[in-house]
C-alpha cells in the first residue's frame, strides 16, 4: 500500500536498518535542524551546491529505500513548482535554480532525520530538549490514533463495499457526499470509544504521559564525529556565502 500513513509503519521498520539509525537521535535532531536553518539563509550557488551534495550523499548512503524519500518531495511539489515558475518569469532562471536547491536540500535533510529515526525516539529526543510535555503527549497519542482511524476506516470501507457502495461520482453528488460524511462521522464516533480504551490500557501499565522507549540515549564519540561533519559543512557554506575566498 502506498497510502502515506501505511508507509510510516514501514518507515519505523526501515529506520532500524538504516546506516544512520545508530547515531544518537538528539545529535541527529540538532544537526539536521542546524543545517536546515543555515540553508535557509544561503543565496549563492556555491554554498547551496555544497549543502545539496552533502545531504544527497548522506541520503544515498543511508540504505533507506528511495521510495520513502520521494514522499517528502511529492508533498512539497506545488510549493516548489509554482514559486520556481514564478521566479523564472520574474527574476530569471538562476534565482529559480537557487531556490529549488534550497528547498530540495532542506527537504532531503528533514527526510534524513525522519527515515532514520523511529517516531518515538524522535519525540523522546525532543523532550530531552525540553519540548513541552503537553504537546509531546499529544503527538504521541495523535500518532497512535492515526493508525486506529485507518483501521476503522478500512473496516467501514469494506462494510460499505459489501453493501454495494462504490464511491464513484464526485463530491458534489448528494449520495456520495452523504455517505462519505456519514462514514467520516461514524469512524470518529467509534474511534472515540477505542481512544478511551487505549488510554486506559496505557494508564494501567503505568504510563505517565512521558514518552517511553527502550532505547537509552548515550552520546558516543561517533556521534561527535557525525555532528562535526555537519558543523564543517555549515561553516564551509557560510564562508562561501560571505564571499571569504577559498
Amino acid at each position, binding site marked *: 500500500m502506498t497510502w502515506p500513513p501505511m508507509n510510516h*509503519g514501514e518507515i*519505523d*521498520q526501515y529506520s*532500524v536498518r538504516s546506516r544512520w539509525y545508530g547515531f544518537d537521535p538528539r545529535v541527529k535532531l540538532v544537526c539536521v535542524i542546524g543545517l536546515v536553518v543555515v540553508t535557509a539563509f544561503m543565496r549563492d550557488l556555491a554554498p547551496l551546491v555544497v549543502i545539496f551534495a552533502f545531504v544527497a550523499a548522506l541520503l544515498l548512503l543511508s540504505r533507506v529505500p528511495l521510495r520513502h524519500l520521494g514522499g517528502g518531495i511529492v508533498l512539497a511539489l506545488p510549493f516548489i513548482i509554482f514559486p520556481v515558475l514564478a521566479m523564472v518569469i520574474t527574476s530569471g532562471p538562476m534565482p529559480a535554480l537557487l531556490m529549488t536547491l534550497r528547498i530540495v536540500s532542506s527537504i532531503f535533510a528533514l527526510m534524513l532525520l525522519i527515515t532514520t529515526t*523511529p*517516531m*518515538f525516539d524522535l519525540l523522546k529526543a525532543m523532550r530531552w530538549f525540553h519540548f513541552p510535555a503537553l504537546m509531546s503527549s499529544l503527538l504521541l497519542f495523535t500518532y*497512535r490514533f492515526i*493508525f*486506529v482511524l485507518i*483501521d476503522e476506516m478500512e473496516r467501514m470501507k469494506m462494510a460499505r463495499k459489501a453493501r454495494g457502495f462504490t464511491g464513484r461520482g464526485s463530491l458534489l453528488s448528494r449520495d456520495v457526499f452523504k455517505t462519505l460524511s456519514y462514514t467520516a462521522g461514524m469512524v470518529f464516533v467509534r474511534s472515540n470509544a*477505542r481512544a478511551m*480504551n*487505549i488510554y*486506559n*490500557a*496505557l*494508564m*494501567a*501499565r*503505568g*504510563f*505517565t504521559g512521558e514518552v*517511553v*522507549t*527502550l532505547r*537509552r540515549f548515550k552520546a558516543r564519540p561517533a556521534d561527535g564525529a557525525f555532528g562535526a561533519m555537519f558543523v564543517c559543512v555549515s561553516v564551509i557554506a557560510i564562508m562561501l556565502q560571505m564571499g571569504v575566498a577559498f
Partner: protein
Amino acid sequence: MQSLHDVTLSVSSGERVALVGPNGAGKSTLLHIMSSLYSPTSGTVRIDGEEVTKRTLEKTRFKVGFLFQDPDDQVFMPRVVDDVSFGPVNMKLAPEEIALRTREAIEAAGIAGYEDRAPHHLSFGEKKRVAIAGILAMRSPILLLDEPTANLDPQGRRDLVNVLMPLRDKTMVIATHDLSVALELTDRVIVLKRTVLYDGTFRGLVERPDILTEARLELPSVPRLMERWMERTGRTGPLPLTIDEALTMLEESRVR
C-alpha cells in the same frame, strides 16, 4: 442508569475467580474499578488492605495487571519487544531487569522470535499473546482479564489456558462468557448482573437454574450432556462438569 450497584466482594491472595454474566452486566466496569481506572461513585476499593486513593494509586498501580479485551487497544508500541517492555520501563527498573523480564514474559506467552515484528502485522491470536506478555512482564501479583478468550480460535484458547494455568502464585479475576474456560482455570464463580447474583462454587451454581436463566448463562456442553443422560438413565450424584468427571461417571455406569 448505573451499571453497577451494591457490589461487595473480596478476593484473597492466590484465588482464581471467574466473573460471569450477560452482556452489559457491568463485568468490564467492575474490572476497571478494581484496577483503579474508574472510581466508584460510592464505596471503596482496597488492595492489600490499603485503600486506593489518588495518593496511593502510584503504589498500587503496578500490583494489578489488566488484560484488555481488544489487544489492538492494548498493544501500543511499534515493535513487540518495545511493547512488552513498556510496563517494566514505566516501573523504572534497571535495564538488565527490564531485559530479563521482557525475555521471560515473551517466552511464557509463547511468542519467542517475534521481538522485532510490528504488532499490527500479527494475527489476532498473536496480538493477544503480545498483550499477555506485556502484562506478565510487569509481574503483578493480581491479574484482571477481560474476556481473554473472545474471538480466539480453539487453539488460541488452548494456548491462553496453557499460559495462565501455571501461574499459581497470582490472584486472578477473569471476566468471561466462556464457562468451559472458567471451569478449567478457576475454582470460584461470581455471577454479576449489575449486582452480585451468586458467589460460590460451580457445583453450587449448577444447582441454581434460576440464576443461570437470569444471567443468560448456559452450561458448557459436557455438563449439559451429562445432565440429560443422568435424567434418562436415572443416575444420581454430583453433576460432572469436566470431561474427566464425565468419563469417570460413564465408565462406572458401564461397569455396573
